[in-house]
């Protein structure tokens, strides 16, 4: 019995010793020590690493002014061999706000584990490889009429990869010189022309030349230019339309010209969908990881990319490099008119002055942020970005809000989202109803098309509202946590400055939601098609605060239900009549049916000055979409961008603060803030 009691006492004593040891000497993240360490991200380890998430994390380091290198050849280090396209980060360094490499890289490794980048190798070997020191792409994305949903999908893909985007309209591009202080181009080092339609026609005719000159000078002086689909046709010197003249090549423009005015452009639509790309330059940085030797599933031997009427290039001059050609169809049966696409160049790369240009025929950004095109898109941006530009999202001093003011903002945002959602639900349901009528078929020349754009925007805005509300709640919690940490770092100026910086950034986010800039787009009440008149849209109708967006959603809901849905219903019989005749004409051609079909087509598609039903419909939808795109979603996207940047800065600074105060101090701050704002604590999850 005494022996048993002795054993029990020993066991209990051991347990108490463990408890005391853990309590008095808490463990925490390891230090990298004084030896120089290089962190290597294996991009081809597709089992352990998401390449898209790795790119997002690389961008967070670049935002923090960390030097990240992109290996342009294969190399060996630490007993491993890495292919070209590998990212590596040498240490030590001092990052933004004085963050040490030990703190920032431990933060990075923690974020990597949370984001599917599970393998980051380290080595103390000295190695040498031909590399590019990455310059963070500061992106100006064209966002104006003619971009439709293309700009939205581009934004979503770029955002998922951690790229911050400035939305640029035509006015931004022609009203100031490219290098004038305050111009969008002067703050950017990359300009993206998305797909959609010919964007230079979004410029007023009198200002088109100025806009073209600004873009050209921007690229000639070292700016990067990336274009997609229709945007790429405008980069071509050989385009029969107004163009930027950046690339010495042409394209099969005749595909998009009606063979006969009463026949429609059916041929190129037979190519819509994913196609196989033949990668011809796998050693070009844009193409790293793709092609015959690709390791990642879906990246080779022929990766797929979505085609939607983009250029198949021709007459490519010797100074232009063909990175990939249109290899083969996935499901398409190309008509004779467009069969030349197979083997035609699909992606080009060239220099223009001191700048680099990459033009995509198909869409690397579809699906948004997904495989397999997203990484190629990112690599193209890294390839063309060469001039470092400062962060346009940094906080302004003396704008720090109080905790009470932040609570007011959070309440306003939360209540606004709650008011908007049922309205947005109704917009989405109505958009779905219109889409289900199948009068917007993209494969059909008389398809309305914009019904799907409205559907896409409404679905996207639901996610954006959720993100903004979540960010607001999380940042309220983070602010409280920072307040709790203040007392623990009173004698540490650097840590105090981190707290101040984070709180300024949080304040900037909330201040922005209360001071939304006005978009210059004019929403007319009538247009040349004779539709409307719509209710006047004046400056008084603009939203200058997040809360005022509610009324704009109500306006869109009213227009969708009272104008767009009735129009679609009236268009449906005409659309079905045409398609019935078209099918009949295909199966049992007679001259009389063909003549009736041609006449019907001409009536439906009649253009200026007397608009037929198709243009009436498209312009009617455009009216509502203009309000969505420029008066609502532009604000939501900008808030989301600012929220992303704020979360990054706060998270990085929090790590350094946690290391400074120790795990018990940091836990104390976390718990204090969680007791005040439990929802934010749960959402934040550090």
């Amino acid at each position: 019995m005494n022996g048993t009691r002795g054993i029990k006492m020993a066991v209990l004593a051991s347990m108490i010793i463990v408890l005391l040891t853990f309590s008095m000497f808490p463990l925490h993240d390891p230090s990298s020590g004084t030896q120089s360490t290089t962190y290597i991200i294996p991009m081809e380890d597709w089992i352990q690493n998401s390449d898209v998430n790795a790119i997002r994390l690389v961008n967070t380091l670049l935002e923090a002014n960390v030097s990240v290198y992109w290996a342009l050849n294969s190399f060996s280090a630490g007993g491993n061999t890495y292919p070209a396209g590998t990212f590596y980060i040498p240490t030590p360094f001092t990052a933004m706000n004085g963050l040490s490499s030990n703190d920032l890289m431990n933060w990075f490794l923690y974020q990597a584990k949370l984001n599917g980048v599970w393998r980051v190798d380290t080595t103390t070997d000295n190695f040498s490889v031909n590399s590019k020191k990455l310059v963070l792409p500061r992106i100006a994305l064209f966002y104006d009429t003619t971009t439709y949903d293309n700009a939205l999908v581009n934004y979503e893909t770029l955002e998922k990869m951690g790229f911050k985007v400035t939305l640029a309209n035509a006015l931004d591009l022609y009203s100031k010189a490219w290098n004038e202080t305050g111009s969008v181009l002067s703050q950017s080092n990359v300009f993206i022309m998305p797909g959609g339609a010919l964007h230079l026609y979004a410029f007023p005719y009198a200002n088109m030349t100025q806009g073209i000159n600004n873009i050209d000078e921007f690229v000639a002086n070292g700016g990067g230019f990336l274009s997609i689909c229709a945007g790429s046709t405008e980069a071509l010197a050989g385009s029969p339309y107004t163009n930027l003249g950046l690339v010495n090549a042409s394209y099969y423009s005749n595909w998009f010209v009606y063979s006969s005015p009463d026949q429609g452009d059916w041929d190129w639509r037979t190519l819509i969908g994913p196609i196989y790309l033949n990668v011809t330059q796998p050693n070009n940085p844009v193409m790293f990881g793709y092609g015959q030797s690709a390791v990642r599933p879906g990246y080779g031997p022929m990766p797929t990319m979505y085609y939607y009427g983009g250029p198949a290039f021709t007459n490519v001059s010797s100074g232009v490099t063909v990175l990939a050609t249109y290899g083969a169809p996935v499901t398409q049966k190309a008509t004779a008119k467009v069969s030349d696409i197979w083997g035609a160049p699909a992606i080009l790369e060239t220099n223009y002055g001191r700048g680099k240009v990459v033009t995509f025929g198909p869409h690397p950004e579809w699906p948004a942020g997904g495989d397999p095109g997203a990484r190629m898109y990112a690599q193209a941006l890294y390839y063309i970005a060469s001039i470092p530009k400062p962060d346009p999202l940094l906080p302004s001093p003396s704008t720090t809000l109080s905790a009470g003011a932040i609570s007011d903002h959070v309440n306003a945002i939360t209540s606004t989202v709650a008011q908007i959602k049922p309205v947005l639900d109704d917009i989405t349901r109505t958009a779905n109803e219109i889409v289900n009528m199948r009068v917007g078929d993209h494969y059909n020349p008389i398809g309305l098309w914009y019904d799907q754009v409205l559907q896409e925007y409404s679905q996207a805005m639901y996610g954006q509202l959720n993100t903004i509300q979540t960010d607001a709640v999380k940042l309220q919690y983070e602010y409280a946590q920072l307040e709790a940490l203040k007392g623990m770092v009173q004698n540490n100026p650097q840590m105090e400055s981190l707290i101040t910086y984070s709180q300024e950034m949080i304040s900037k986010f909330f201040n922005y939601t209360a001071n939304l800039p006005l978009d210059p787009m004019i929403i007319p009440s009538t247009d040349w098609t004779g539709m409307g008149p719509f209710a006047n849209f004046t400056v008084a109708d603009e939203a200058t605060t997040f809360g005022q967006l509610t009324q704009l959603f109500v306006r869109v809901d009213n227009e969708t239900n009272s104008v767009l849905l009735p129009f679609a219903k009236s268009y449906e019989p005409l659309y079905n009549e045409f398609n019935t005749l078209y099918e009949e004409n295909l199966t049992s051609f007679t001259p009389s049916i063909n003549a009736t079909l041609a006449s019907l087509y001409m009536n439906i598609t009649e253009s200026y000055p007397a608009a037929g039903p198709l243009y009436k419909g498209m312009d009617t939808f455009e009216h509502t979409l203009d309000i969505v795109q420029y008066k609502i979603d532009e604000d939501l996207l900008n808030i989301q961008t600012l929220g992303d940047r704020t979360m990054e800065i706060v998270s990085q600074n929090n790590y350094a603060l946690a290391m400074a105060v120790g795990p018990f101090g940091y836990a104390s701050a976390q718990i204090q803030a969680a007791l005040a704002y439990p929802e934010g604590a749960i959402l934040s999850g550090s």
Partner: protein
Amino acid sequence: MTSAVTSQRTKDSGITNRLAVLVVGVILSVFLWWFFGGLGFWVLPGFAVIFISIGEILYKALLRNVSERSATLRAGIMTFFVGVALYVSVATQVMLAYIQMISLIVIALGVIGAAAGMFLRSKQ
């Protein structure tokens, strides 16, 4: 006599089973350590198996010479080792400091429970 021998053999086979589970926990932990790259919260499933197995083995070892079982003692030991598994798993992520603190509370509760089970009479 026969029942005591049978009881002892039962205890021995129970410890053997727990050792087998412990080995599984070690294998799982090594795999998780390797796949996700080092020590971190991702190793928790493996560590939980290891430390709970250790707790079970310890409990059965303590009962070798004791005919009385104690649910409180067992619960205390299990709680202690769950806390240790949790603590060690998150120890290298300072951003999870609040979980580290929670794990210390769990460990402390385990110590209290074990002490109660050892020195207070309780029967299963």
